[in-house]
């Protein structure tokens, strides 16, 4: 801000507050709906202050799901989502960081070939090859399993690229010093590179955790057993009919629960997340 214009400052705050209100509006309505009964929601307009069925609704969905749609307990679904999100985040970070290390710090035949092979996967989002990938998972008997939920989504190029970019900025002197000290490549990786990569790993963890938690199409196809539903899919499976036929309080309670863990991750690791997102995607 160059000159002092109080009018413009007030306008800025007003716009920002309006933005925050619009962004938060659906969340507020969802929260209120999750504390009401179905009759209250069906009487138009629904009240905009929280009701008194919070404990009832949340207890219902956590233990027994909805009564008209899917009856899978949301607690199980949250657990599945957690396993999937952690599995994808940790798996992706693990295999990408070592692959990236190999590409950057070694010379070997076919190095560029493997690099391009990984690069090409950017052009193949899962939605584009969904049916054949489903067939492969079925052939390998991976349906309705945690492995089936996480493994096919683990290999992607974004993490590898991020680490590659980061490694390229690490001063060569460090590697040289390690070589002089007689340390092998894995010692160098463990003792020097990994600690330096902490910020990138943290940022990637947030991004991939959200990515894994919010997966929709892949779990939709891979899971048909109610015990394997993820939270996001569970919400969809509770919507069975028209406006009046859905149990909105329970659906909204499930939505609140499904939004909670990723929101906590984003807000708690906000600093790393913002830094990692902005600096590494460019």
């Amino acid at each position, binding site marked *: 801000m160059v000159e002092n214009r109080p009018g413009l400052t007030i306008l800025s705050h007003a716009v*920002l507050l309006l933005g925050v209100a619009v962004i938060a*509006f*659906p969340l507020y309505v969802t929260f209120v709906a999750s504390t009401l009964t179905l009759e209250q*929601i069906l009487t138009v307009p629904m009240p905009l202050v929280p009701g008194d069925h919070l404990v009832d609704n949340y207890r219902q969905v956590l233990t027994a799901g909805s009564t008209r749609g899917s009856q899978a307990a949301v607690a199980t679904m949250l657990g599945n989502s957690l396993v999937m999100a952690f599995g994808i985040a940790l798996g992706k970070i693990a295999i990408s960081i070592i692959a990236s290390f190999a590409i950057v710090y070694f010379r070997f035949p076919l190095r560029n070939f493997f690099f391009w092979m990984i690069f090409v996967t950017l052009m193949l989002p899962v939605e584009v*090859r969904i049916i054949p990938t489903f067939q492969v998972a079925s052939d390998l008997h991976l349906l309705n399993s945690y492995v089936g939920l996480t493994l096919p989504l683990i290999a992607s190029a974004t993490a590898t690229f991020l680490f590659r970019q980061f490694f390229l900025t690490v001063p060569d002197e460090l590697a040289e010093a390690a070589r002089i000290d007689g340390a092998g490549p894995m010692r160098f990786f463990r003792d020097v590179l990994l600690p330096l990569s902490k910020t990138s790993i943290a940022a990637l963890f947030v991004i991939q955790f959200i990515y894994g938690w919010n997966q929709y199409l892949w779990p939709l196809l891979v899971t048909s057993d109610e015990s394997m539903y993820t939270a996001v899919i569970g919400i969809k499976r509770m919507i069975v009919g*028209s406006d009046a036929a859905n149990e909105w309080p329970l659906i909204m309670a499930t939505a609140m629960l499904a939004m909670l863990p990723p929101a906590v*991750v984003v807000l708690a690791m*906000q600093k790393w997340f913002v830094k990692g997102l902005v600096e590494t995607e460019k």
Partner: protein
Amino acid sequence: MEKRVVFRSAWLPYALLAPQIAVTLVFFFWPAVQAIWFSFQLQDAFGLRTEFVGLRNFQALFGDSRYLASFRTTAVFSVAVAFFGIAISLALAAMADRVVRGALAYRTLLIWPYAVAPAVAGVLWAFIFAPSIGIVTYMLRRWGIDWNWILRGDQAMLLVVIASVWKQISYNFLFFLAGLQSIPRSLIEAAAIDGAGPARRFWTVVFPLLSPTTFFLLVVNIVYAFFDTFGVIDATTQGGPAQDTQILVYKVYYDGVKAADLGGSSAQSVILMCIVIVLTALQFRFVERKVQY
């Protein structure tokens, strides 16, 4: 850019690469090859009889007015999502850049939708806009607007655009804010000294300097609208009414899973692959100038 100092080993790099390459081969390349192979076949649902038909599936697609309509729908949808997503978040970022007090609070309050799954965003907005019980529907009716997105395609499109944009605002906002904060103050001060007001300064100095960010976000938002919004569509309109919100990626899923038409679905996948390749090439060529191969 290459490293000057490297390690030498006959087998270690291969071992380190093995997990990623293995998963990539099994779950990326093999299905992609199959998709391409299936796109040239005509087969019944169970794969008991297959016949190589060359480009016939592709010809059928381009002769199908519904498929071409899906292109148009996807174009309208992605342009709307990209444009509104970028415009709204740019406005918010510009305002946030101006205020000194509470910037961090605003940022916190604006970035949490990033954590929401597109499908969940769709469900929330569909609830608010539900034709019989939605709270916004009620307000619209009070103002005389008849809202029924189950029957009116333009309203269904509006609904999915709103849900998709809402979710993406945080992502765009973060990038714009970072971009704005990296613009040297000296340039802005120079323009102020020349007598330019805030609005002039924004459009003549700031916005052009933001163009790499804007272009980057344009590509990212379009890719988002093409693929990640699948959850929004499936959780709300399922492509309806009358295919008014059937974007290309949804049609791939629908034809492959619900209609068991593997040849048509695979051909559509191949076409989508080509589009992604073009978009990704654009992104890397014009944006990632810092990274050299």
